[in-house]
Structures are given as C-alpha cells and as structure tokens.
C-alpha cells in the first residue's frame, strides 16, 4: 500500500491537490490586500484581526501551512528524482516546442518560497511576537514596506514568477488529477491564463499604487 | 523417399485436423514443465508459439536478434489478416478460403495444410480480439472487414494500415504474460549461430550474445524456428534490413530439407529506389490499386512531368493487358507487367525503373476527402519518403522483393526432416504454394504459432518425457560451438577492404537481375557463376573492424551475407530445375503466346525439397508429389 501511496503518480496527485488548495487561497488573500488601498486603516486592520482570531480561520491557517509544506517537500522530492532520471544531458539541448513555463516550475517555485519566508518575517512573525512590530496595525506595516523600492522590486519580480508558476500549475493540476476532457480542457487552459494574469497583476497593482501614488 | 513423409492424416479433407487433434499423443501436465522448448523468433508465429506453449505448461526459451520481441518484422504488415468468419454473409467459408489460397498459390501447395490454415483462421481472429487487438469496427460495434486482391469475398480483418503491428503487439502481450509467469524465458539480442543435433534429434542451439559477443549454448527437447523469410537476399526488399535466413540455413545444413526456395513474391507497389545508398524499399499497400491507375508514357523516354502528359499519350498497361481485372490483377502479374514496360524503355523517373500509380481520376470522382480517409496514412508515408505529394502528382512505384513462399520443408505436424526441429510461419514452405494471396501471411503465421504447433508438438514430445534436461556439456555442443567460433574467427581474419553490406548489395543485384521477377536458363546459369565469383571475393576481401567481444554489427552482417551466398546458389538451382512458370516463378521459356505463365502440371506438380550434401557438393532433390483431391487444377486467367 505504501508503495502505491508513494508511487510517482500518487506524489503528483498530492502535489496537484495541494496546489489547487493554494490556488483558492490566493484570491482570499488578494481581497484582504485590496483593503490596503483604502485610506481608512481600520478596514484592513479589522480584517487582519478577524483572520488572526476567528477559530475556523485559525484551523484553516494550520491546513494552509501544512499544504504549503507538503507542496514544497513533494515538489523538491519529485524534482530530485527527475534530475536523477537523466544523469547525462544532451549537448544539443532541447529544441522541442513545449509549454515554456513548465520547464522552470522548480525555480519559479523556489523564488516564491523565498518570498514566502520574507513574508513570514514581515508579517506572520510579528503576530507570533518573534519580530518587533504592532500586530494590530498591519496596515501601517504594509504601507511602510511598500515605501521601500527594493522591497517593491522583489515583490514585483516574485509575483511575475508566481504568474508563470500558476499558468502551468493551474491546467497541469487538472491533467494530473486525470481531469482531461475534449471540451473542458481548452476551457481550463483559458481560465488558467486569465487567473495567472489577473491574480499577480492585482497584487502588483496594490504594491505599485502604495509605492508610487501615495 | 523415406525423407519426405508428409504425415497427412487419413480421412476427408475437412475432418483431417479434428481427427488429428483427437488422436494425437499428449503429454501429462506434470511432465510438461520438465520439457524444454526453444523458439527462435518473436513474430506472429514465434511469439504465438512461445506463449501458447507456455500456457500449456512447457518450459520455453524464446530468442530474437532485436532488442525487444516487439520489433519482429510481422510488425510491418499493413493490409490485414484473413479469416473465414463469413461475418458479411457473402458466401465465405473455410472451403472457399482454402480454395482461394490453393488457386492463388497456382496449385503448388499441399491441400491438407492449406485447409487447416483456413480452418484455424477463425480462432486466430477470436484470440486476437480477446487479447485486445483493436481491429476496425462498424458503427454497430461488430468487426469490419475489407476485400483484398484475388478473392470475391470480404474476409480481411484490419486495423487501419497497421494490422501487422497490432497483431504483433497482441502476440507480444500474450508472450509477456508467460514471461511474467516464468513459463517463458526471453533472450533478446541473440543470434542463432547453429543448431545442435544429438543422436539425430534437434537438441539445442548455439547463440551469440549481440551485446557481449559471448557464445552461448542452450539445450532443449525440441527446437522451433519461427525466423521469417529470406526476401533480403535481394538486399533491397520490403523486409527489415536485418531479416535473414541464417537460422533456417544452418538447420538446412544440419539436415533439414529446403523446399521451393525460388518461390519469392515480388510486391508490385513499393517506393522505388531513389539513391545508391538506399537500404530499403517501402511497401505501399496493395489496397491502393483499388483506386489508383497504373500507367507509363506511350513514348519512350518521355521526361515531361506526369501531369502535363495528356491521357491519350499514356499507356494504362494493366487495363490494356488485363481488361477484366485491370489494375487489380494479382501481385505476380502486376509486377511482371511493370517490369516489362520498364525493360522496354518506358519507365519513368531518372532511373527509368518506376511506373506511375495515379489517383487523379479517383480524386476527381470521389473527392480528396474520400481518398484521404481510405489511404491517408499511406499518402503521408509516401510524401515523407519521397517529398512528392501523391494528391497532386502520381506516385512512382516499382516492384520489390517481399515474401518467400519457399522455406524449410515441413510435414503436416510442421516438423522438418530433423526430428524435434519445427518450422513455423514464413520460415516454412507449406501454405502458399508458388504465390501468396494478400492478408494470408498474418493468418498463417498466427495459426501456426497459436493453434497448430502447440497441438502437433506433443506428438513428438510425448516420447521425450524420459529424456532429462539436455546437458550443454555434451561433446555435440562443444563441437558445434567450436565450429561457430572458428567461423567468426575466419571472418575476422580476412582483413580485406570491403564491407559485408557492399557484398550483400552486389549479391542482391545478381539475384534481382537473373532470379527476380522473370528468369531464364541462360541468366540463371550466368547467375551461378557470378554468385560463385562474388562469394570467393567475399571470403578474400571482407573487412570487419572491431573485436567480437562486444557489439559488432559488421560481424552480424557478415554471417548473414555468407549464408545468403549459399542460399542464393540453391535458389538459382531450384529456379533452373523448375522448367515451368507458376505463380511468382516465371521462366521466360515457359509462357503462353500472350506472355502469361505456363504451368507444367504433368512434370512439376511437386514440392522441390533440397537436401544439403556437404560443402561444394550439389544439392540432392527430393520430390513431394502434390495430389489434388478436392480441387481441380486450372489455368489462372485474369484477362
């Protein structure tokens, strides 16, 4: 049984499920972030407070962290196996026309992970009291951060890479789950394209407005 | 004639096989495991036999020279597989299939074997379908069939243009099941170098491991050759370039008679030779002649592009010569007619060795879409190879060596003249006479492997149960191995200048020119001299770089070509001996005033089975008279 659970397809299945869960988390986070555009800090701060204290969200937070951890661990595990599967590469490279972004999932994923760590330091660790700051005023924390140009550069780069990651991940997850259909698969691909553009652009929009127009 | 007891069971034709099966000696299931059988080849017959014998419980060792059993050349058969299912209710029956084969073979095949092949054909289709072979189906979910040359019923089951591949993969899957069960042990990348005979019986083989160069000994209670045909004797043919006659030839030199070697089918519709390095002539399915019209320009050396030659200046020579059958005459007839035009100087392309196969009229009448549906994959293949689009310009085609009706002589039980040595599929001679009908090679190969051999072999093995596993330390193994190693060393010691392939190519040209589609006494005699000279040159000027202790493809080729020199002599001898024209064997001296084949039933209604008499000795001819009880011998006419 364990062999079935840890077979290549099962590992991919875990990756896909975790990925889809993370896909649902991003819009939630985006909606809250949009409140940063408001001039009234109370709106964002109360939303942040709610997210930090509501019991159901607390549970979901644990699930979210677990999911991220699983997604990262499984992703690295799969990638290492993939590297081992071709110890000697081609001198003439690969000229096959394929989904471009799929070739760099581990690297786009890694940069997102680095951003996540940064994000933890900037916000989550404040909440835990590990880093100095006022957990009741993330509005100001965010506004201050977006005043730092370097932070914006990192932020924007990471969200561009997130877009690349999402574009392949979205439809790939469906394929891995075996959900391939003559009509629906092309639809999924279009939705994936829209999603992977709209989500990162929206996040980027917030960062740019706070940085340049405030 | 002690040697040629064909062991045909008594009784009416339709009852023979049933009667045989119910009276054949059997082997107790407990004893089967102790009996070892070697099967050489993994095509439809070889993989079929190995898996069936494994299912029965025998210990089977299966060998092939390819890296995987899935690559045997049965894989390349295109058109289909015949079966007397009569699903179309168009009057088909076992008897009708039998009759078509006998007539198509120009009355040079053995009635009892042919009838049995027709009889088991229905089981073959059932079995392949059960194995998951995706044959074409009708909208109602039933199996579809199509018609093929030389018959009036629709009995050809097919899987687009890849029937052979699908059947072979079916056979490969049944073989895999037995490999998993441990009943069959697979030995890929092995070449059989010789047969080991102990006390007059086939007891094993010597092989070369094509990766390590190791010479290996394998013992068994019986040996089955499923090694295919020898069409690559022409060098250029529709066969896989590594197909060879070596296993069969080694068996022949150890005492198995070789029957009707000169009966080789030349397929009319192949992509012609395009360059001097060409290694292969790709077949374009016979089905194309349903809609394509064959022609050459009426004036010699007309080098205008085909499309601008007006129709009154075209010679549709098949329609002209055979108004009744037109473009759908049998393969041998169509091939000879194309050769006749080219020899007379009317051939097209730079070489003058091609005729047009034109679909313009069919496209006009039925539309491009309809033609695409029927032949799309073949047209794609043609444009891939030649760069010419057959939708807009006629295909260029020319005949090429294709299938060998001749092969090792076998009796009704498919045993050769060496006790314990069997030959199945294309490697034997038994079912196709002097010409094979389309879609019956898959049928025969599968029938032999799955349903006939597994039933007949117990007749022999029942008396072998007391024989312990054959020890490969016996002196017979040691000696045979020594001879095989010596031969390899002899090849390596020549250290001349030329490649094995260049000799093969020259041998092929001699065979094609003098012992191909048409033959005559003068040419055949000349061929014998040329073959001998070339053979001498081969043994003096061959070069093989590299050692024998690793992959050495030049060494592999050399062994095969060396055997082809010897087989070529026999082939020509057989063609000289048969002073008549029948099926694929066309002797110019024996034709009707209209240029058609003229059989001589009085003198040549026999199977010519040749015995090897030793190095440099002339072969000894044994005749198996063919007695036609059920059918009356007639002249084939397609006018």
């Amino acid at each position, binding site marked *: 049984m364990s062999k079935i659970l840890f077979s*290549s397809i099962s590992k991919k299945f875990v990756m896909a499920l975790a990925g889809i869960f993370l896909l649902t988390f991003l819009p939630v986070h985006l909606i809250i972030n949009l409140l940063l555009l408001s001039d009234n800090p109370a709106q964002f701060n109360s939303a942040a407070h709610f997210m930090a204290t509501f019991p159901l969200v607390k549970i979901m937070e644990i699930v979210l962290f677990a999911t991220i951890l699983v997604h990262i661990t499984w992703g690295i595990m799969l990638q290492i196996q993939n590297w081992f599967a071709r110890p000697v590469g081609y001198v003439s490279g690969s000229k096959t026309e394929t989904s471009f972004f799929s070739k760099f999932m581990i690297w786009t994923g890694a940069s997102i992970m680095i951003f996540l760590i940064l994000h933890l330091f900037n916000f989550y660790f404040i909440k835990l009291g590990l880093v100095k700051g006022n957990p009741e005023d993330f509005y100001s924390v965010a506004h201050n951060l977006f005043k730092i140009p370097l932070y914006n550069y990192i932020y924007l780069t990471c969200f561009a890479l997130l877009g690349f990651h999402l574009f392949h991940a979205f439809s790939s997850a469906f394929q891995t789950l*075996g959900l391939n259909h003559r009509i629906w698969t092309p639809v999924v691909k279009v939705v994936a394209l829209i999603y992977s553009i709209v989500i990162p652009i929206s996040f980027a929009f917030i960062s740019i407005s706070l940085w340049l127009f405030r | 004639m002690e040697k040629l007891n064909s062991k045909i069971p008594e009784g009416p034709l339709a009852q023979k096989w049933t009667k045989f099966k119910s009276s054949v000696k059997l082997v107790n299931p407990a004893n089967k495991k102790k009996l070892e059988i070697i099967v050489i080849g993994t095509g439809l017959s070889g993989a079929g036999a190995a898996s069936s014998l494994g299912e029965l419980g025998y210990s089977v060792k299966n060998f092939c020279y390819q*890296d995987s059993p899935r690559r045997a050349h049965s894989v390349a058969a295109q058109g289909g597989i015949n079966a007397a299912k009569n699903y179309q209710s168009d009057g088909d029956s076992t008897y009708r299939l039998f009759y078509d084969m006998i007539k198509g073979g120009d009355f040079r095949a053995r009635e009892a074997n042919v009838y049995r092949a027709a009889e088991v054909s229905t089981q073959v289709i059932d079995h392949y379908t059960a*194995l*998951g072979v995706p044959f074409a189906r009708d*909208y109602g979910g039933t199996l579809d069939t199509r018609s093929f040359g030389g018959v009036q019923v629709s009995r050809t089951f097919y899987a687009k243009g890849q029937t052979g591949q699908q059947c072979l993969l079916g056979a490969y899957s*049944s073989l895999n099941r037995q490999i998993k069960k441990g009943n069959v042990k697979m030995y890929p990348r092995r070449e059989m170098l010789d047969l080991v005979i102990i006390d007059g019986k086939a007891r094993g083989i010597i092989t070369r491991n094509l990766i390590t160069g190791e010479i290996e000994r394998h013992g068994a209670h019986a040996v089955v050759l499923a090694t295919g045909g020898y069409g690559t004797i022409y060098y250029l043919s529709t066969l896989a370039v590594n197909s060879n006659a070596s296993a069969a030839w080694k068996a022949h030199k150890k005492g198995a008679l070789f029957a009707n070697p000169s009966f080789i089918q030349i397929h009319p519709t192949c992509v012609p030779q395009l*360059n001097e390095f060409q290694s292969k002539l790709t077949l374009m399915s016979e089905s194309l002649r349903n809609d394509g019209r064959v022609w050459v320009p009426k004036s010699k050396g007309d080098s205008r592009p085909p499309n601008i030659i007006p129709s009154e200046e075209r010679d549709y020579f098949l329609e002209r010569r055979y108004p009744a059958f037109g473009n759908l005459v049998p393969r041998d007839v169509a091939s000879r007619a194309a050769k006749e035009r080219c020899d007379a100087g009317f051939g097209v392309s730079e070489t003058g060795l091609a005729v047009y196969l034109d679909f313009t009229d069919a496209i006009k009448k039925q539309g491009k879409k309809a033609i695409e549906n029927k032949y799309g994959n073949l047209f794609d293949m043609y444009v891939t190879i030649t760069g010419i689009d057959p939708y807009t310009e006629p295909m260029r085609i020319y005949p090429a060596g294709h299938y060998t009706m001749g092969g090792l002589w076998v009796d009704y039980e498919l045993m050769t003249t060496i006790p314990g040595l069997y030959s199945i599929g294309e490697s034997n001679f038994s079912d196709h006479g002097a010409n094979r009908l389309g879609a019956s090679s898959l049928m025969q190969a599968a029938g032999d492997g799955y349903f006939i051999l597994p039933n007949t072999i117990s007749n022999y093995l029942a008396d072998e149960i007391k024989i312990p596993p054959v020890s490969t330390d016996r002196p017979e193994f040691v000696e045979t191995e020594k001879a095989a190693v010596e031969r390899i060393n002899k090849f390596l010691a020549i250290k001349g200048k030329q490649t094995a392939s260049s000799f093969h190519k020259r041998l092929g040209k001699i065979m094609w020119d003098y012992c191909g589609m048409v033959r005559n006494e003068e040419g055949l005699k000349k061929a014998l001299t040329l073959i001998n000279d070339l053979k001498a040159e081969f043994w003096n000027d061959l070069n093989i770089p590299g050692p024998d202790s690793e*992959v050495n493809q030049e060494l592999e080729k050399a062994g095969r070509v060396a055997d082809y020199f010897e087989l070529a002599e026999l082939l020509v001898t057989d063609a000289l001996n048969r002073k008549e024209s029948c099926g694929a064997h066309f002797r110019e001296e024996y034709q009707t005033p209209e240029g058609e084949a003229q059989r001589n039933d009085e003198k040549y209604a026999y199977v010519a089975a040749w015995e090897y008499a030793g190095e440099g000795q002339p072969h000894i001819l044994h005749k198996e008279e063919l007695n036609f009880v059920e059918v009356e011998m007639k002249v084939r006419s397609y006018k």
Partner: protein
Amino acid sequence: MKLTLKIWRQKNAKAKGTFVTYQMDNVSPEMAFLEMLDALNKKLVEQDIDPVAFDHDCREGICGSCGMYINGHPHGPVPAITTCHLSMRFFKDGDTVWIEPWRAKPFPVIKDLIVDRTAFDKIQVAGGYISINAGAAPDANANLIPKKNSDAAFDSAICIGCGACVAACKNASAMLFVSAKISQFALLPQGQIEAKDRVRAMVKAMDEAGFGNCSNTGACEAECPKEIKLQNIARLNREFYKAF
C-alpha cells in the same frame, strides 16, 4: 551537400564516451538519415575504423528500433516521424548535425547510439496484457464495442516503443509510453477485468526502473513519432486512482 557530423562514440557500457567529428561530402537529399549513416560507416569500415553502432531494423517507421537524438530533437527536427523516415532533404549544405543517444538513467548506453530499452519490456511484462489462453476466446463478435472506443484504443495502441517520449522529456518520464498501453485496454471491455492490477503493476515497474515523474510539459507528445496524445496520461492517472 556537405555536412559536419558530431556523433557520440562510446565503446561499451562502461567506457567513457565522447563526440567525434566526421565530415560527410556528397550527401544526397534523397537519402534517408540512416542511409547517410550507412554511407559514413562504409567509409569507416573501408578505413578499418569501428563503424558507428545504432539500432535499426524495419526502416519503415514501425518497428521502433531506431532512435537517436538529432540536433535537439528525438528522431530529428521533423515531427511525427522516426529517424529511419527522416530524409536528408530537411538538412542544408554546411549544416552541423549533433547525433546523440537517448539519455535516461533507465536507458543506459550499450555502444555509441545504442541504448538498452529493456526497462520498457519490463513494464509490459508487469501487466501489459489481457489474460486469456489460446483457444479460450469467445467469438470475436460476441462483445460489441462502440466504434468510437475501438478507434480510440487503436490510436493509443499504435505506440512503437521507441523511447522518444522518454528521450524528449526533461524528466525522462515514461508516462506517455505506459499510458498508451493502459489507455488501449481501458477503452476496451476485454481490458476491464484486470484493469486495477494492470495499472498498479505497470506503474510500479515504471517507478522501479528509475524513470522521472511527469510534469505535464508535453515534450513527449510533441516528439512522439506516432502522435500519441497527452490525454492518455490523464487516463492513466484516472485508472491509477480507480485502482486504490
């Protein structure tokens, strides 16, 4: 035309390989790629140099023996064909042609361009069959199968087992190969009885052989000489989940 060939030469499985450069003059555009290599080998043998070893057999695109990685593509730059069908008219005078063996851990190089593909056979032995003995089959028309399913099964069944999918995949994954067989049987009623055991056994054999994991990149589909589709992989995934 004149070509510069850069060919991977490796004496045997244990030896260290290297690229060797060969100049080819007088290459005719009518030659097939393998015939061009035949011509090179003829030249080499005449100079008593070990010729380039490569697997090949039917030379009509169906046996699956041949396969080499040519200028960044398995089976060369032309889609939907095998190496033996690759015509030299697709190359230009003066071109440099890199010729490499399939690269994957489960496909170790045996010599030069020959690799060991027995891993594929092992996968098929593990479960790529329907268990029925010769003679036990019902009449071929006893089970009616919708034409659509039968045709789809055929489209999956035409895999020639050449290994181009593995060679093309950045992860050296064999999913397309395995999925073609699984799909063929999944689409036919004959294949249902053993469906669960089959998919488990074949995936296990695939994993044990050391192939990489599928990342849905699609290189396999793009390079498959028989145009086997990615949908097969989705079907394989479904069949695998069903087998839990």
